């Protein structure tokens, strides 16, 4: 069956059963590479996307339950027009393998949308559900702080 979703400003009619997690629709139907499969359990944050300005775990949300436009890391910015968080992640070299990065960037953007000038503790709290195994945490916190400073 066909389901209509809007992703990064574009509407798509996708073929998927209603219970299909949003993640597989984004990756396999729309061929987006930003959201990653990490656990399928909503435990790690690699699949994080933004809906209504909030971070959402796309691996556990059925596509039929998505009732608002979805923004993935690809929709936040481009190399020519980066989101402040993306610019800061590059500037701070805030990744190693980068597999968690897209989820981190989206979760950080959602945090800054709600709290434009978060403290270190707020950043750590907001990202506590996003796991990083390479140990880039300190750089990520620095990047988010720096992005916050950059926002007008």
């Amino acid at each position, binding site marked *: 069956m066909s389901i209509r979703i809007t992703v990064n400003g574009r509407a798509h009619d996708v073929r998927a059963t209603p219970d299909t*997690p949003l993640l597989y629709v984004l990756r396999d139907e729309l061929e987006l*590479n930003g959201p990653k499969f*990490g*656990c399928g359990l909503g435990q790690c944050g690699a699949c994080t996307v933004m809906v209504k300005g909030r971070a959402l775990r796309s691996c556990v949300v059925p596509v039929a339950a998505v009732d608002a436009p979805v923004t993935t890391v690809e929709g936040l910015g*481009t190399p020519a027009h980066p989101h402040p968080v993306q610019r800061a992640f590059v500037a701070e070299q805030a*990744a*190693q393998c*980068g597999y968690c*990065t897209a989820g981190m960037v989206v979760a950080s953007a959602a945090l800054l949308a709600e709290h434009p000038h978060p403290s270190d503790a707020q950043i750590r709290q907001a990202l506590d559900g996003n796991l990083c195994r390479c140990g880039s945490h300190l750089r990520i916190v620095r990047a988010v702080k720096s992005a916050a400073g950059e926002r007008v």
Partner: protein
Amino acid sequence: MPVRSSFLARSGGIVIAFSMPRIAFAQSSPTKPAGPSVPETNPVGGATVPDTVDNWLAINRSGTVTVHFGKVELGTGIQTAIAQIVADELDVPFASVTVAAADTSTTPDQGYTAGSASLSAGAIPVRQAAAEARLAVLDLAAAHFGVGTDRLVTAGGEVRVAGETRRASYAELAGGRAIHRTIAKATKVKDPDAYRVVGKPIARVDLPAKVFGSFDYLQNVRVPGMLHGRVIRPVPIGAKLVSVDESSLGGLNGVRVVKRDAFLGIVAPDEWTAIRAMRKLKVTWSGGGLAPVTDLAAAVRAVPLVNEKAVVDTGSVAALDSNALTATYVWPYQTHGSIGPSCGIADVRDGKATVWSSTQGIFLLRSALAMLLGLPNNAVEVKYAEGSGCYGHNGSDDAAADAALLSQAVGSPVRVQWMRDQEHGWDPKGPAMVITQSAVLDATQQRISAWRSDVWSPSHSARPQGEAGNLLAGKLLNIPTPKNAFVGGDRDAKVNYQIPNYRVTMHNLLDGVLHSSAMRGLGGTQNTFANESFMDELATAAKTDPLAFRRAHLANDARALDLLAAIEKLGSWQARPSAAGVSGSECLARGRGLSFVRYENTEAYVAVIADVVVDRTTGNVRVERLAIAHDCGLIVNPNGLRNQIEGNAIQATSRTLKEAVAFNTSGVTSLDWHSYPIVRFSEVPDVTIVLVNRPHEPVLGAGEATTVVIAPAIGNAIHDATGLRLREVPFTPDRVAAALRSLKA
């Protein structure tokens, strides 16, 4: 499609611009892998290291440079560092250098990407090839200008005639022409004083794509006509497949079941159908299972021995028979815990196979897959694509084999994505180890007189090694597991301290309780935990400062003493006898611990000071800060190096405080991030680093060294804070609280 085409644009499209690298591939029969057995750490090359420039790099028509490097990018920034080295040696702009993705068709065989050896050893032939390529360009320029090479100067991808305005670009002189020139042993590489790019904190070339979501991870490879596969593993572990009830899949269209012996998988047109089929399929297994384990240390020591070997045997340790300080240290099984579970994509059709994998060794995976598939080596191509972070021998090779078997069975390209529980359950584990220490001080009570270590460890490598029996799929097909070389258990078993009477005995175990292989630091992690914790126990026995105690045993190593001076300053170390109880309240105890290693006895020097706070009631240990001094010789990229050190420090803090694989007689039971927690943002310590740069010393690896010093530093800090000596990792709140209660009692 889009992903695949961008792969082509990045590598294949460029390859067309110059002649294909000339690599002589060994031909072999379908069942026998090519070449001799390659050790775990095969730093410079595989069976044969190509000796002409065109095998290693090409100057393209546009003047850009493509490097074919046999070590893969595991998320460490190695491609950036290699590009820096080539840019300096060849005198071209950094931005013009690209390191191609590894591929068995185009890349020199440099063995496994392992053992922190990519820069220290793996880069050597690339640097030599770049130096030779520069000489080739100079020869072309000499002919072009009609002058001797001694009058020519190279810089920025150009050759100019000294004192004149005449100049020509590398593109004009050599672009698009294969440099089929032997790399002469006599060709000199540059003096480090002449480096312009090496030593600079150049931004990583791969990070922008990762931050914008466009990076070509293995997980993003899409092949036309690709189907989605999932595997179903035996329950309990080791069980035989009795029957499969395909009628249980009712309602799922297009699903095919593949079963061969105990290998079971399904293939479906889309990913969600594949997952649902995997979950719905009714399967009957029989037999299998693990022996019950109640005492991990006893279970490890009960594993049959391969042999016993002395790593060092100096003087006599007979004095230890009476009045020795003795302690036993235990390290649990741990999992790699990459955020992305293993993945493999394979297209096996018409007697050929193309396999995309995040393996650490494309060539030895290729021959293992050839054997598994019954194909000759030269019919199998393995293309490397970066996966989620790799910290050793994870499930990458096994997922590639799963995809290959499924693709062969259905005759279409298949992508296999392991689920989270499969990654936690079936990746080869970092081995559990047991180390018993025994030592006495001399008459001064300030120096160690005799020390004996006994180390129980399995081999830390079960890598493919070109043998199908080393792959999980091969084991499920009852292909016998070959005998791999025994490696890694003795890493850092011997300390670099001066000890007059010293014996280290390896009790090499046949296998483990769980299947295990290489994980960051190999046995260096477990052995350094035991050695550096025990050094602190001895310092306590000597009633002396742990830093002074270490210095006294390193008097012959100026570089080690320099490093200890650096960490003393960075960490503002205050001399103390151990268990000083630096400060703290009734409830919270603060302490500091120190640890030092020269990794693998000959590699990087690392020292760390850990500051911890122990909650006496809950047993919670908070690592507030890790101060790290690091000397790995010449620094290629200080930012990349700091990134590696921070990553090692944080990951090792996680392994120390939180991580142990749980299992029962059925198999692994810690199958998600709740049952196998790792550190989160709220728990991550601050990390401060001082880098000791030694531009005229050889580059030493930094991918693992810091990992091994973290656990003992934290353990020593807990002892400093509370007087409690913890000898088994992880230092979980329950374990710490229980130990504190028994200390009081």
